[in-house]
Structure formats: C-alpha cells, structure tokens
C-alpha cells in the first residue's frame, strides 16, 4: 500500500505525518470501480483505515467519515476538489457505508475506536464529525458523543451534495436526505446481480444445449443446434429478464413485489423469444412452449426477487412477506415446467 498511486504525499500533524490524497480520480481508479462491479478480479478493494488529508487542512478543517471500501473513499474524494478536509476512514472490512452500517461494522464502537486510534482530538481543535447519512443505521450519534466527545453531524446521502452541504453551514435540504433509485442507479447495480447468478444460468443453459440433442429416438447432433441452442437462449433470456430488464423497468412493472414484476417479464419475454426463435408452435410443441413459459416465468421471478437486496427501498418484513408467497409459486412453476418439458420431449403422450 505504501506505493498506492492515489497517495500524493504527507501532511504533518501533532500526531505525525498523515497521507495526503488527491481529489482527481485516475483512470486506474475508474477502471478498478468498473471491474469491481462486473466481478472482475477478486483482489482486495480496500483503503487502509485511518486519517487522510485532502488539500491542506488545518486544525479547524472539517472531518468527513468514510468506509474503507475503495469505491466509497473514491466517490467521496472526487467531490472534494479544491477543498481542505480530513477524511477519517473506518475499518468496515472493505464494505460500503450503507451495507456496513446494516451489518454494524460501520458502527458506533468502530468510529469511537478510530477517533481515538488516530488521535483526532489532537489533530483538530473542533469536536465535530460529518458522517454520511447512510451510516446512521450503524452509528448512534449520542453514543459517539458519549464515547469520544465528538458530535456527529449527518451529511447528505450522496457525496455529490457534500460541497453544497458544507457551503450552507452543514444544512441538508429534503432532497439531500432522500435515497433515490433512478434508472442510472439501477443500471449501475444490475451487473452485480447478473454476475452473481450468471454462472448458474450459463451452466443451466449449457445443460439444455446438450439435452437438446436428446429425444425418444436417442441423441442427434443436428438437434443440438435446432432445439438445444434456442432452449439455452430461453434460459438466458429469462435470467437476463429477471436480472437486467426487470431492474431497468422496475417502476413501470405492475405489482409491488419484485417477484411479480419479474414474473411479467419472464412470461412475456419467454413468449416473445420463443416466437422469434421457433415461430408459432404446432402440435406437441404447444406443450413444450407451455413448459418454457412456466420455467421462464419462475426463473425470471426468482432472479428479480433477489434484486431486492440491491434496491434502496425494500424492508426485511416486506421481503419476508413477498417470499412466503413467491418462493412456493416459483418452485411449483419450475417443477411443473420441467415435468411437462420432459413428458413432451421424451414421450409421445402429448402429440
């Protein structure tokens, strides 16, 4: 870490030299964030906890608290161009502010410990910490005051609002306090979900490519192309319907439960994709189509339900309620779909 490119030098303080960082993100910082979202490289994406300086801070300069997930740290410092401030990085085990606050690692005890470990009371003359609002599920402001004498001021939800917040004498307006989940936010987190389930989806698709060659009369290679590939496309279509299309269209889809929103996309997407790849079904193919509608709907519904974790507005009680209804329905749909698919493929029972 000593040679980390984002450290520009040091600033002397009564407790020793503090690393100075820049507000400019380099292409390496941006590439790292992009790779992280797409799950490329499992390398530690962290910043060592402790005190950092940006610009030329003095004993009167503001102290901004952050997590030691590098993206949290980078997204904060890029908003501080031309400012003099201290950044106090907590040890959140490499996890972003909001998630870490939920786990309690971005918490009262760690903040008090970090203030004491850095000797912050000797570096600054004031007794004020600006904590990101989304750290509040883990941090108790009155607990921090009791623990180390510093008063917690909750900053805005988005780091981008920090300059305005600081310029207005640490006053946040209503909009600064609200969490949003706009199209760009949803597009940014969708890859995380896609990568997490993508391996399983590709495996399932590969199995269907091979199974495509099989029928009652044995294995034929030409069917791998004519049947296996389209069916694999249906698997991937349902997966992307739940992990990408549903998040993007989230507010426009009927229902409040994510499982229901995803089910619509699975049903319509599977029907549309089938028609595109295989045309109108005839004879026994009608039953194969019904089987795929069941499986596609169940799969997209399940994948979409998992997007609750990336969203910014779902509650534990709500997700529990959603799952009590959705998971049995998804299981029935998947099992019934698979059974129907097997019967129509390997028996002559359905014409």
């Amino acid at each position, binding site marked *: 870490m000593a040679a980390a490119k984002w450290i520009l030098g040091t600033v002397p303080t009564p407790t020793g030299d503090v690393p100075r960082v820049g507000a400019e993100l380099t292409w390496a910082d941006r590439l790292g964030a992009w790779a992280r979202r797409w799950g490329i490289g499992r390398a530690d994406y962290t910043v060592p906890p402790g005190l950092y300086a940006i610009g030329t801070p003095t004993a009167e300069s503001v102290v901004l608290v952050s997590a030691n997930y590098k993206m949290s740290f980078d*997204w904060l410092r890029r908003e501080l161009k031309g400012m003099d401030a201290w950044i106090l990085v907590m040890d959140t085990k490499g996890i972003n502010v*909001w998630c870490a606050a939920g786990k309690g690692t971005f918490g009262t005890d760690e903040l008090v410990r970090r203030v004491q470990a850095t000797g912050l009371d000797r570096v600054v003359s004031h007794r004020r910490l600006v904590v990101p609002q989304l750290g509040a599920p883990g941090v108790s402001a009155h607990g921090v005051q009791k623990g180390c004498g510093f008063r917690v001021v909750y900053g805005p939800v988005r780091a981008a609002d920090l300059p305005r917040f600081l310029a207005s004498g640490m006053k946040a307006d209503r909009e600064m306090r609200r969490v949003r989940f706009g199209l760009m936010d949803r597009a940014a987190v969708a890859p995380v979900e896609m990568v997490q389930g993508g391996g399983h989806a590709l495996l399932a698709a590969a199995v269907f490519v091979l199974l495509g060659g099989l029928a009652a009369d044995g294995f034929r290679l030409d069917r791998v192309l004519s049947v296996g590939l389209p069916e694999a496309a249906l698997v991937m279509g349902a997966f992307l319907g739940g992990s990408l299309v549903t998040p993007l269209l989230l507010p426009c889809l009927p229902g409040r439960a994510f499982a229901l929103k995803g089910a619509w996309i699975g049903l319509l997407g599977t029907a549309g994709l089938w028609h595109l790849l295989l045309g109108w079904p005839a004879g026994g193919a009608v039953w194969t189509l019904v089987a795929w509608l069941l499986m596609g709907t169940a799969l997209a519904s399940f994948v979409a339900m998992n997007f609750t974790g990336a969203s910014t*507005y779902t509650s534990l009680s709500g997700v529990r309620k959603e799952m009590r209804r959705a998971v049995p329905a998804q299981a029935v749909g998947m099992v019934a779909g698979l059974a129907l698919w097997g019967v129509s493929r390997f028996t002559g029972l359905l014409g």
Partner: protein
Amino acid sequence: MFGLRYLPGVTTLALDVERCSGCGMCLNVCPHAVLAGTDGGRVAIADRDACMECGACARNCPTGALSVEAGVGCAAAIIVGALKGTEPSCGCEGGESAGGHE
C-alpha cells in the same frame, strides 16, 4: 406508473410519542421521509409504508421513542439465513455503490 413503493402494511416501525423529546435526529437520518415534525414539536409517522426498516431512526433516538426490527430487505440474505439457520445476513462483499451507497 407504479413507482418505487414496496409492500404496504408490513413495517415493524413503532413510535412512542410520549418519549419523544423533539430533537429531530430521526428526521435527519431517515432516507425515505417516513417521519415528520409536528406543530407540537414532537415527531409523527407521516409515511409508514415508505419505511425500509434500516433502523437509523431507532439507533439515533436518544430517548428510545422509536423502535423497529431492523434488517436488510434482501431475498438472498433471507435464503442464506434460512439455509444456515441464522438471522438474514447480507452476503455482499464490497457491495454496490450506486445511489448513495457511498
């Protein structure tokens, strides 16, 4: 059209108005404007169904007037918790960093 509203009538959020000192800390930390100030100086639950049970208000209430069964609204966490026999636990490593997760 349907907007970003989740299931209604589920939150475990509770407010004991008698214990509210009117400090307003909960108004600062709630990310969904669930609480609002009143003329009497104390707070009131203004938009109960917008509550995501993050627990920020309860943790920052110095008089213990607010309570909520806080947790993550994450299906994967609930599944992992059910399989391991533990409380729902978020498995995200670095975690997403959009829309204010920083």
